[in-house]
């Protein structure tokens, strides 16, 4: 499936920026400037729509309503009116998320990537993050196909981190997930041992100040599957 993103924005300067920002993030972009023109646009092959609400011709919410009659494509709404009623209306009509102007390029890209990164199930009992693979049924861990021996606690810890690759996981969550009787202090000991056991090719376990730990992955869309 293509990574094509449809941008519907009437302002020329902002539209150019949106296209450039999304293309820099590795996405293919099609830009439509007019609401009327967007009414009949083909949505097959479009993975996400960035939709401005204030459009000439057909209004953004009307477009959203039209899109929802024929597609479940994720729609990210851009709104300049910071009014809750507009956002609620958009979400009720089927928008998946919104970004309020003025927004930062990374804010928009992050929201787009968050929508595109929805995990796809490959096998229910297999977690894969880069070179790391965890077989939940067999309780085995491999890195680049080489088995790594872990204790049950270390396996649970790694699994809890790998379930949300790239995301910081709180110490409290990790203790609840992996340590039956342990405390946050013993957590650090287990993490330290786990780090030593994982080879260099494995994703790194990074300490996140004030939160806990994160399994680091390369930036990009769809960094992990399970």
């Amino acid at each position, binding site marked *: 499936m293509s990574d094509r993103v449809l941008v519907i924005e009437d302002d020329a300067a902002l539209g150019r920026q949106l296209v450039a920002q999304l293309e820099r993030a590795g996405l293919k972009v099609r830009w439509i400037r007019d609401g009327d023109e967007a009414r009949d646009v083909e949505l097959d092959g479009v993975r996400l729509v960035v939709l401005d609400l204030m459009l000439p011709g057909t209004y953004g919410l009307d477009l959203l309503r039209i899109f929802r009659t024929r597609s479940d494509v994720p729609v990210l709404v851009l709104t300049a009116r*910071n009014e809750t009623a507009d956002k609620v209306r958009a979400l009720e009509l089927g928008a998946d998320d919104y970004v309020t102007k003025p927004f930062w390029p990374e804010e928009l890209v992050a929201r787009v990537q968050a929508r595109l990164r929805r995990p796809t199930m490959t096998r229910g009992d297999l977690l894969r993050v880069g070179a790391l693979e965890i077989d939940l049924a067999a309780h085995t861990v491999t890195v680049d196909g080489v088995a790594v021996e872990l204790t049950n606690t270390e396996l649970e810890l790694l699994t809890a981190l790998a379930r949300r690759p790239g995301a910081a996981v709180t110490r409290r969550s990790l203790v609840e997930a992996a340590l039956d009787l342990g405390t946050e202090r013993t957590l650090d000991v287990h993490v330290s041992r786990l780090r030593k056991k994982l080879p260099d090719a494995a994703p790194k376990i990074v300490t996140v100040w004030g939160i806990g730990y994160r399994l680091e992955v390369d930036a990009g869309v769809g960094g992990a599957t399970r």
Partner: protein
Amino acid sequence: MRLRARVALPLAIGVLPLVALVVWAQGELRRGALVDATADGLVERMTERERALCEADPAAWVARTRERRRSGPRRAALRGLPRRAELAVYDARLQPASPESPPLDAALASALRSGGDAASRVFGPRQRPMLAVAARMPWSTGRCAIVVVQRPYPGGDRRGVWLTALAVALGAIGVAVLAVGPVVRRIRKLTTAVAAGAAVSMDGDDEVAELARAFAASRDENRARVAELVARDAALTRFVANTTHDVMLPLTVLVGHLAALDEQLPAAETTSAATVRAALEEAHYLTSLVQNLGVAAKLEAGEPHVVWHEVEFVPLVERVVARHTRIAQQRGVSLAHSVPDAPLRVRGDVTLIEQAVSNLVHNAVRYADVGGHVAVVLERSAPLRFELRVLDDGPGVPEALLARLGERGFRTDEARSRQPQGFGLGLHIVHDVAARLALTLQFARATEGGLLVTLSGVCLPA
């Protein structure tokens, strides 16, 4: 005091003494007329012949006169005196003319000595009062200069008159109270209409109808004024919304240009990079300020502007963190966040909550030291409770000032010296939003040395 009581009480206070005065005055006038008639009758009856007989033997004259009145012809005997009247005569010095005559009553004597031609006094039991009238004869010598007659005085018993007067007064009060009834009903009808804000109409041309018309006119005027204010408020809101919209678009483009410029600048051009980053920071501050002013206006407008709905908290936190990532990076501050894997929804207003969280993160990033950290953690602390923590390792806030952080315009000295351009609106908005949406906001000193802000409240079931 109710209207009926207001009418009855003054009537009672005013009418009762007035009726009493009239009854008393009427009694006095009757008594005066009777005294005058009696005195005139005595003088008229005391002809020269009668005087001579009296002077000759006062006791015999008195006895004969009594006998003549009781047994003689009615017309001759009375001449203004009732049959049961008793006579007594006295000389000019007010001494009894005969041994049978009793001494002259002191009150009568006193009145005569003061120069009057007649004097009177009421005496005897209340049921059968008597009237004594002393009349001075047209002569001032001899034994029969003063004649006193004692006669029954039916007018002396005034109990019946008093009772009648009281009944009349009470009747008048009752009639007045009954007469007020229709007025009271009209006023009640008017009160109900005014209280309900309904159209006020009242037939007639009395004062109540005039009051109703005045109310109706005032109501129409107030409605027109309120409509005018609402229209003005709506126009102002539209103006602010349109202006905000017009500001947001170029601001977004400006931010995009600056961000692109920042990425395109070669690393060697440190001066240009510093300028672009300073511009980025200003643009970031400006966007935050514009958003804050919009939210502050919404909060000032009150409850009707709060839109209650289910807010998805996880994407909200992700949006806020993404918004501050670049500024944190260029300030050398590590900004990290953690959100639950499962959706976390709360009842509230997404615009208000997002701005509150944004202000907390913005504050933490702005006041962090280079190389410092900011952590944003959202988690479900209990099945139906959430907790959002924003933690930094910046300079923190002295314990004594923590409680003042939510005050409008309050800034610590540290904040003033680090960021002179702020004016303490951000945390005040957080405080206001928390209060408006029934969330708990707590400031504490973090164990890491910085500030720990916790926003917590009720969330919906997972």
